[in-house]
């Protein structure tokens, strides 16, 4: 027998990067706000870096792929039909539990792709709209950065940047010799003690949960403040669908609680924050007689235009010892090839995120995969050549939206509660492939200039589907977009979307800074328009 809870004013679904930001911002309204999250709170004492078996544990409960983790919080994803596989984390904090914390903003040109380059679409908002929210989000998350980056309009730094280390110095010198842009990365990591969070101690584990609490996962940032302001986070609650009434308004959501009971949570406003895969999945699963193609999908765009950011990797070996496994994963970027250049055979561009070396087992596994580390006699000598002597970069390429790249509901695969799993259909475009090739060639130039040997390249990185965007795009025209310029569904006037689904284009930078800026923007719009929100 399904249970019905007391109604709330605002129901947020998903407690990740965007759900946390929107909850915190709306908390000041004193509305009754509940967030349903399918996962749980994380205990930092369980993070891999606290144990001697840290490298093994990174591939177990804190593995980045949901199909590998297969924890109770996870839902399966059918990504067989995609060269790029999905990575995420399901729990309070969402993907920010595992993210590296590379925190670039999108650039002003990213919001005007059609006007500037004749491809995809312009956003209905621009950099100036988001600028105050980027700045607010930087303060809330505690972003380490250096002011004055010539690749961006001026922006304030909350605290000093992460150290360059010997790797950053060496690569910076090579970039200077080539005359190419580089800068310390905006990093969602505290370089100093900040708002109750201790400074980074260079564990190098940012990608598998930060035991120090230095990395800005939203469980230690926004959620702490939102809960103090009485927002309720209800964990182990997996939403299956959104319910609507005869007026075409959302009335709340059905979910399965931790005991597998089906519960209805009535709400005045429903906000989706389940990420670029989870949100279209629930909207499509909310199909009804009133909304036969899925909720908010009169445009047919729900689930379409999935964008990932195809990644390339370039790694080299150096004669001198470098930082190796010590230090945060993020420290330095290059925007040299970010903006469109008519001289190239592709449109748009990419950024580089430079990388240090790896811990010993990962060094060995990379070496084996790269053909640089043999079995048998030669193993030890070859290992010593690689360990603490590698560095390189990954390229984050702008992925342009294409309707054929999409999320649908898998006809047979289901999660533990019987909710259909998402199915990913994705192919790499010619533009992306050319961009990847360019990024690999220039990456090799950089490492060669820095003196590298044994340069290895990988493109596209198959296990790098961690940026999930575009599947409920924003736009002014209800025929071609799912939500308006302030995140409200064109079809369902009390349904909002704040996660990466709303991206019109992907930019060529990691998305979370922009995802959260959008969530804060949408929250402000809700607050400002509260009296005529549903008109």
């Amino acid at each position, binding site marked *: 027998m399904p249970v019905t809870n007391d109604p709330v004013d605002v129901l947020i679904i998903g407690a990740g990067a965007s759900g946390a930001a929107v909850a915190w911002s709306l908390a000041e309204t004193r509305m009754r706000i509940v967030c349903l999250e399918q996962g749980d709170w994380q205990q930092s004492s369980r993070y891999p870096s*606290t144990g001697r078996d840290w490298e093994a544990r990174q591939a177990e409960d804190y593995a980045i792929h949901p199909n*590998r983790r297969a924890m109770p919080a996870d839902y399966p994803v059918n990504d067989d039909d995609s060269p790029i596989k999905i990575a995420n984390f399901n729990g309070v904090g969402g993907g920010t539990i595992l993210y590296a914390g590379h925190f670039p903003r999108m650039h002003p*040109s990213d919001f005007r792709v059609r006007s500037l380059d004749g491809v995809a679409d312009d956003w209905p908002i621009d950099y100036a709209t988001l600028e105050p929210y980027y700045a607010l989000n930087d303060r809330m998350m505690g972003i380490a950065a250096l002011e004055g980056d010539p690749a961006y309009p001026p922006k304030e730094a909350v605290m000093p940047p992460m150290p360059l280390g010997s790797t950053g110095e060496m690569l*910076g010198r090579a970039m200077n010799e080539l005359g190419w842009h580089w800068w310390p990365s905006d990093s969602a990591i505290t370089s100093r003690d900040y708002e109750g969070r201790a400074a980074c101690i260079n564990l190098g584990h940012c990608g598998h949960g930060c035991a*120090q609490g230095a990395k800005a996962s939203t469980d230690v940032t926004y959620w702490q403040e939102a809960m103090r302001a009485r927002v309720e986070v209800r964990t182990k609650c997996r939403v299956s669908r959104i319910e609507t009434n005869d007026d075409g308004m959302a009335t709340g959501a059905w979910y399965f609680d931790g005991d597998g009971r089906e519960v209805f949570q009535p709400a005045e406003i429903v906000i989706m924050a389940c990420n670029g895969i989870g949100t279209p999945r629930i909207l499509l699963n909310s199909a009804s007689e009133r909304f036969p193609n899925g909720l908010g999908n009169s445009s047919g765009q729900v689930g379409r235009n999935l964008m990932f950011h195809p990644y390339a990797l370039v790694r080299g070996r150096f004669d001198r010892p470098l930082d190796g496994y010590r230090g945060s994963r993020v420290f330095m970027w290059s*925007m040299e090839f970010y903006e469109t250049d008519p001289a190239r055979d592709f449109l748009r561009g990419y950024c580089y995120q430079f990388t240090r070396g790896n811990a010993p087992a990962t060094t060995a596994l990379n070496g*084996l995969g790269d053909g640089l580390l043999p079995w048998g006699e030669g193993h030890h000598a070859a290992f010593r050549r690689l*360990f603490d002597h590698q560095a390189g970069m990954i390229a984050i390429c702008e992925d342009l939206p294409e309707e054929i790249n999409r999320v649908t509901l898998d006809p047979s695969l289901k999660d533990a509660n019987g909710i259909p799993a998402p199915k990913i259909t994705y192919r790499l475009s010619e533009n992306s492939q050319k961009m990847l090739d360019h990024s690999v060639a220039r990456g090799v130039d950089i490492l060669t200039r820095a003196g590298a040997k044994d340069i290895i390249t990988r493109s596209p990185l198959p296990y790098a589907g961690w940026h999930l965007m575009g599947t409920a795009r924003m736009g002014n025209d209800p025929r071609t977009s799912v939500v308006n310029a302030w995140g409200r569904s064109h079809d369902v006037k009390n349904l909002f979307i704040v996660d990466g689904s709303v991206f019109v284009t992907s930019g060529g930078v990691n998305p979370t800074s922009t995802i959260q800026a959008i969530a804060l923007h949408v929250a402000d719009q809700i607050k400002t328009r509260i009296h005529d929100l549903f008109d």
Partner: protein
Amino acid sequence: MTSSTETINDGWGPALSDGERLCLRCVAGAMIPASAVLGMPGADDPAIMADMASSVKRDRPALARLLRGIDEAAGGRLADLDAVAASALLDRLRAADPAGFAVAEAVIARAYYRDDRVLMAIGMEPRPPFPKGFRVDEGDWSLLDPVRDRGPIWRASE
């Protein structure tokens, strides 16, 4: 040793059988042999093997499959072949099934490179990263001067 009928209640299938462990030991020894010169144990060292067999979780089913396949290709037990024949067989099988062997490599490397003796031999302190952390030098920020001097490179959108 654990018998083939033992199950581990971690949700990742039965424990490795005696035969599978024996085969894994041969594979580990072939992959990372001991080095007397460097004072390093091989990956087939008993303590490393015990740690490896007791900690493998999600990879256990795929690993067990691979090990059974190796023994079968050896005509019974890999352990019964002499070192030269075993090494030649493993080379051939690895070339034919790199993905399958990648599982074994991952399991072996993750257990090997956390052994105290190994870590000290490669210059690491045998401890978890947290809570002591590591030191990374600040670096020379004046290296950014030429980047600043070249001026803005972002593209105006209006």
